[in-house]
């Protein structure tokens, strides 16, 4: 670039001399005007030249200044037609010199801009396919969304659709409708975020209020539609300080099925299908008794460790099993709250923590990575389908 700049300046000086000399020797008003015009155009040209960032704009500049018709150089020449012979010769030489300088500038600039192109042409002759090619920009889905999408995909063939609900919820939907006692510690402001201007509103602590909303909505038509089965993926909030294993916001996927004569066998059958679809056909599942207020019986579900094939590893602490979700048969109080007769209808529900599962499957050491959104993490963990 520096050498090019020097070249422009040298060219300028060389021809400026001619122009100045000419101006000293002449006194006609026409000559002075032409010289002024030359000075102005030349200044314009050298201002515009470095602005040309591609061959298109360079060609336009070329047309504007040295083109055969209508260019500045051509117009200057035109003005010489009426000049006296002596002036015609001197000025003509000066204008030609100026034009030559422009052309050289254009050529140099073109060489610079075209360097890549030229090399490309050479490359095309002896193409090295191992040269890194231009690749389209690649984004990524977030790993948590990807995992939730996958779960939806797994349950779709069984007739499950997706239900969603708001994150700002009422106590009724988040607690009352789920058979959670009025004095349950989860309702305390030490566990749950409440809104200042709306003391009755909170940030949902699980995706279960979507159950309540959905059951309330479909209760009148449950018979005609033949029960309901759905997943409820979403963001939930609990008042946990941020650390490697806790976050005040995280994701859950809730599953629910209501029908006639639904029992634990249907829960087991569905989860076996889904977890095999997720982790592979040789996956085993194990139900263990547990307790959640909104189900009865309740259970924890373990899956044979997908990382070691149940041989025992660090993740499954050598047991061959990892806990994957909580589930159970819908508590009759939950159905009754929604206006569904528990002597006619029954069902099951499960809920799983998406981050927990993602961390387990990916061996991500720190929960906070999922919310830092470093593109390197997202590329590696989320990617595209």
């Amino acid at each position, binding site marked *: 670039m520096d050498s090019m700049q020097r070249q422009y300046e040298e060219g300028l000086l060389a021809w400026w001399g001619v122009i100045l000399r000419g101006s000293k020797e002449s006194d006609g008003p026409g000559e002075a005007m032409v010289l002024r015009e030359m000075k102005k155009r030349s200044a314009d040209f050298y201002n515009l030249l470095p602005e040309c960032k591609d061959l298109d704009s360079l060609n336009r500049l070329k047309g504007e200044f040295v083109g055969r018709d209508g260019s500045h150089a051509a117009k200057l020449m035109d003005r010489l037609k009426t000049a006296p012979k002596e002036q015609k010769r001197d000025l003509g030489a000066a204008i030609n010199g100026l034009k030559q300088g422009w052309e050289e500038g254009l050529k140099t600039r073109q060489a610079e801009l075209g360097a890549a192109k030229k090399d490309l042409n050479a490359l095309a002759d002896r193409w090295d396919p191992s040269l890194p090619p231009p690749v389209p920009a690649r984004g990524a889905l977030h790993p*948590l969304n990807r995992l939730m999408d996958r779960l939806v995909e797994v349950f779709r063939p069984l007739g499950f659709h997706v239900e969603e609900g708001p994150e700002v919820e009422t106590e009724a939907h988040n607690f009352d409708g789920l058979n959670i006692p009025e004095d349950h510690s989860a309702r305390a*402001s030490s566990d749950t975020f409440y809104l200042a201007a709306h003391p009755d509103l909170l940030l949902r602590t699980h995706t279960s209020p979507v159950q309540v909303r959905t059951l309330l909505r479909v209760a009148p038509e449950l018979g005609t*539609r*033949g029960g309901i089965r759905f997943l409820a993926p979403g963001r939930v909030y609990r008042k946990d300080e941020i650390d490697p294993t806790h976050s005040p*916001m995280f994701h859950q996927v809730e599953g629910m099925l209501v029908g006639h*004569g639904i029992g634990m066998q249907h829960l087991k059958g569905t989860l076996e299908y889904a977890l095999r679809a997720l982790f592979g056909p040789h996956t085993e599942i194990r139900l263990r008794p*547990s307790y959640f207020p909104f189900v009865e*019986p309740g259970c924890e579900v373990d899956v044979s460790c997908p990382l070691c094939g149940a041989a025992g590893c660090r993740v499954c602490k050598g047991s061959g099993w990892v806990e994957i979700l909580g589930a159970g048969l819908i508590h009759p109080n939950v159905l009754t709250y929604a206006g569904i007769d528990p002597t006619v209808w029954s069902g099951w529900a499960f809920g799983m923590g998406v981050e927990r599962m993602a961390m387990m499957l990916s061996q991500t050491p720190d929960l906070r990575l999922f919310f830092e*959104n470093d593109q390197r993490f997202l590329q590696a963990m989320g990617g595209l389908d």
Partner: protein
Amino acid sequence: MWIERKALAAEIPAAAGLDTRRLCETLAALGFPVDGVAAREGTEALDVDITANRGDAMSHRGLARELAAKLQQPLAPLEASPAVEGAPGIDVRLETPACPVYSTAILELGMGDTPLEVQAFLLALESTPKRLPAVDASNELLHRFGHPTHAFDADRIRGAVAIRWARAGETLTTLDGVTRTLVAQDLVIADASGPIALAGVMGGDGTKVTEATRRVLLESAWFDPKTVRATARRHSLHTDASHRFGRGADPAMAPVARDLLVDRLRAWCGARLMGAWTVGSAPVAGAPVPLTETLLARVAGEPLSLAEAADALRRLGCSVDVETGGLRVIPPTWRHDLSIPEDLAEEVLRLRGYEHIPSVLPPLEGPPEPLSPSYLQRQRLARRLAHLGFHQTVTYGFISPEADVAFAAPGNPAEGRTLVNPLGQEYSVLRGSLLPSLRAAAEQNLRQGAREVRLFELAPTYASAPQGPVERFTLGMAWGGILDGEDYLSPARPVREADLSGIAQELGWDRLPEVRSLGEGLFGFELTVSELPPAEARVIPAFRPFSRFPAVERDLSLLVDLGQAYGALAAAMKAALPLDTLQDLRCVDVFRSKGLPEGRQAWLMRMRFQADRTLVGEEVDGWVAAALAAAESLGAKLRA
């Protein structure tokens, strides 16, 4: 909860024959997973996870009872020599049903220390022996048998004892040295001077047993679980006792635990029983719960015999009548969690083992429902953006008020979206815009050395409204840094506003996108997802014919004022052109340089014409002239 293996085996001898792994598996299969095993004091301690509904299992005896039922092995007999009850040594009055039974005794303490094996037992459970037999014995009983008891220094009690509601404003200094102001919902043990203990939670400092204590008053009672939970929460005082009373202790254990305590003090320090008595009586067993054969079969997934179910429930301590088609079950005094038929069905399955539950796919009873258009739209949007090079982010829904106010819409005050109990000021407002979070994530990426950052988030934003925040699914995007230049074909350039506008347009946003500057060379844009055009409802759109004749392209280089609005000029030119042949009109380049007249810029406008015939040069010239005339009417000039 810590469980010491030898103490467990003392309650159920069969447990001694199980290796640790098998013991842990058996406990887990009963609903009590073991989180860890620690070697301590020459023995093994198991960290057993007990769910909130099973207060009865919060002791060695409690878990032994479960193991005995599962393994069908006998429990060790409970060896307590019943104290002969006599006249009250101190007047004890029960003033509320929240304490229906209160067994007590007065003992004169002798000399002696807590036995070493008991000290080791407590240490194995991470409990420090106090070397005060009355205190350590009470503590040992709690862990071994699950029933909390308490010992007062009898000589420091003034007058009669009452179990009553506190008077609002009364104070009590508890054993932890904290002076607490009580409310009328706190149940207390009180003497003539005022409260001397928070019932079921913690004793008082003024009547505590010390080395100087000569006589103790023992307490073994039953307190209402709800009352104990409320008091523990109110005073943030969660103790071993409050955990057990709060989940429901066994009222029948009140006199038994008293006797066990008396036995220990006699044995450990030669204490002399001065008198034992019980005030009130344990509440009578609850109403019987029915369990029909039908419900049991439905829950279990296969028909189970009533005899098997009755046997399982009896092993758990229930009294069971077998009737036609079902059972009539009275749960034992320690099981407060068995109140509906489903609870009983669970017990039967639990003892049977969940591994025996069959695996069946539920039949479809009706047609499945499609995924909602809104959900599908967001799914497609996310995929689309990922394919356009954007990275999906997940950020918290709450941000700082300062970050929020910079981007939230003017009519969306933060007051209606503010949390009363945030984790901190920086997480206190439900965000009115996704851009602050995206800006933070983008800046973090650039700081970490990212050459280009391209992020998006699909999440609700919140708008304050009288009835509470309204949530709208919002798409936010941030783009900044250096674009391209990473291979030999594409030149590098900084990301510009227009790049985001282009994405908005690509997504179908039909208004002028309001791209915001998020910082040096970083741009953001957000839109409400529902305002994007919905996905085509038809599976395949209707056929639109297209021309197979060659298209003609013409460029016009126009000098226009720097303030000229492009939209107006393009619209004027379009209006002058035949719409049936004009395929496209767009500005393909902009020049702003010193070489142009002051205050002017040059736009290179490209027009593309196509029709169902070959276009003639002259007619195209005519159109271009008309477009130029239209542009000139707005002050544009053909660039020379």
